């Protein structure tokens, strides 16, 4: 990616986050919001403690999902792969759902996000136990589909058993995905996992570039396929688990962000991770901004908005995908 596109993507993210600080039920002008952000004004609580963490949570979750999607697409050589594909998202959501069901969330704010991250780790461990490091891309996708279905069924079971409508409503909220009422403590809990996950996917990046030519050829030019797989899957699991922990189950960012990033970097899967993160972050921040501007009585859930925009985009990408080989 050249310096100009990098700067443009960073600028878009910065503008999206800044606009997010100006948007909400309390009417604040730009100078007021600025004063509240940096100074000590009556509105400081609104801007610093409500709007800023919300904007940053949307950006971080989107960036994590974008990076995870780019890494998995490179690994599986499939533009439709995303964190949902390996089943990691669903299992992370299942972890959170179980924590909510047993009312563990009442004990401390960090229980639910931590449950999502632990479940994402569990999903990764399970993938390794099933031989993910040695499975072909097609088999890995099929294993992921199986894990997703299993997690979906388990989530449905928990919802069936929900003892009262309050817990059911909590569950639904989580599954739809939202970044309302996030605090800096939530960010501090999840950001380190995201940073570690991003680092792992970036170490895998040269191997992902080599994998463009298929596994045999990539191995023959000197790429360590098992190491690349391990790093990419582990990194994507960390990124996904942390994103689900922060924002609930949000789909399609992981497919759409890398798709938009690819033309900027000559379609090299190894160089798509950073731009996909920047685009994913901006996308989710803007989506979260838009749902606050819509004139509905009930605010639309972020995950619902992401799916309403992302699913048609996914269908378009799927319909246009052609495999190139000779």
């Amino acid at each position: 990616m050249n310096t100009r596109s990098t700067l443009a993507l960073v600028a878009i993210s910065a503008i999206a986050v800044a606009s997010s600080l100006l948007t909400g039920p309390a009417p604040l002008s730009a100078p007021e919001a600025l004063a509240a952000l940096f100074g000590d004004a009556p509105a400081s609580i609104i801007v610093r403690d409500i709007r800023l963490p919300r904007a940053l949570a949307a950006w971080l979750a989107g960036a994590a999902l974008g990076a995870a999607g780019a890494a998995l697409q490179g690994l599986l050589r499939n533009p439709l792969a995303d964190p949902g594909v390996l089943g990691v998202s669903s299992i992370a959501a299942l972890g959170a759902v179980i924590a909510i069901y047993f009312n563990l969330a009442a004990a401390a704010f960090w229980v639910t996000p931590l449950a999502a991250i632990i479940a994402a780790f569990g999903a990764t461990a399970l993938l390794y136990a099933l031989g993910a490091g040695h499975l072909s891309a097609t088999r890995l996708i099929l294993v992921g589909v199986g894990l997703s279905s299993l997690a979906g069924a388990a989530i449905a079971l928990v919802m069936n058993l929900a003892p009262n409508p309050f817990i059911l409503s909590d569950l639904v909220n989580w599954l739809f995905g939202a970044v309302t009422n996030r605090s800096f403590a939530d960010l501090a809990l999840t950001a380190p996992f995201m940073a570690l996950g991003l680092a792992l996917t970036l170490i895998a990046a040269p191997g992902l570039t080599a994998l463009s030519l298929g596994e045999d050829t990539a191995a023959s030019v000197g790429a360590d396929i098992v190491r690349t797989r391990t790093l990419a899957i582990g990194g994507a699991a960390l990124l996904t688990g942390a994103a689900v922990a922060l924002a609930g189950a949000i789909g399609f960012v992981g497919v759409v962000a890398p798709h938009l990033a690819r033309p900027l970097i000559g379609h090299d899967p190894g160089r798509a991770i950073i731009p996909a993160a920047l685009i994913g972050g901006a996308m989710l921040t803007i989506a979260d901004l838009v749902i606050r501007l819509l004139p509905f009585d009930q605010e639309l859930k972020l995950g619902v908005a992401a799916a309403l925009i992302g699913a048609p985009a996914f269908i378009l990408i799927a319909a246009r995908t052609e495999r190139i080989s000779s």
Partner: protein
Amino acid sequence: MIDVSVEAVTVRRNGVTLIDAVSFKAHGGEFIGLVGPNGAGKTTLLRAMAGLDESAEGDIRIGGASVRWLAARDRARRIAYLAQAREVAWAITADAVVALGRFAYGAPSRLSSDSRIAVDRALAATGAHEFRERTMPTLSGGEQARIHLARALAAETPILLADEPTAALDPKHQRAIMSALRMKADAGAIVIAALHDLRAAQRYCTRVIAMNAGRVVADDTPERALTSSLVERVFDMPAGDH
């Protein structure tokens, strides 16, 4: 001068023996045509020689060092492998594909000047210079085949293994690719290519190894190996039809 020795290499999969105790030695300057009907074990042998089949029994030595114990990068600096399936998953440029041939010499995003020169030489050897900036899906089958060969040549390895390098190409492109492989061998490398075109093997190769049902059934100069009785026996067709 480089030499390769293949010692009793056997590959079994799901209880089926794909190649059975294959042994031969090869020396720098040889262009070996590996011939035999479909299922004879040509691809299995080439993959084992490239170090891509961990289950292969026996030993493959390059200049005395066992392929099995070489690190991925060290192996890639000695052996280039042109697979039969020429997959390119993304719309990357021809130039980027050829540059991946230099993977063992540094990250693809930061190509050294040595690697840059090797890529240029490989593109020149295959006559692929003029379309190097185009993306792979926009190239014809013949152009793609030349790019994949250029990728294998760009590694500038002493050994090149090519699995049906001329498959699905018209006669003109077949000749261009066979000439490029012969030139590589003439420059001192060992080139081993699985071929279906026996005339091409006769014309360009210095040696022919014929395989059938996982075993070597002939190993000699093209004239002496490709006798009419061998062609009848191995390919199950009347001599003279090839």
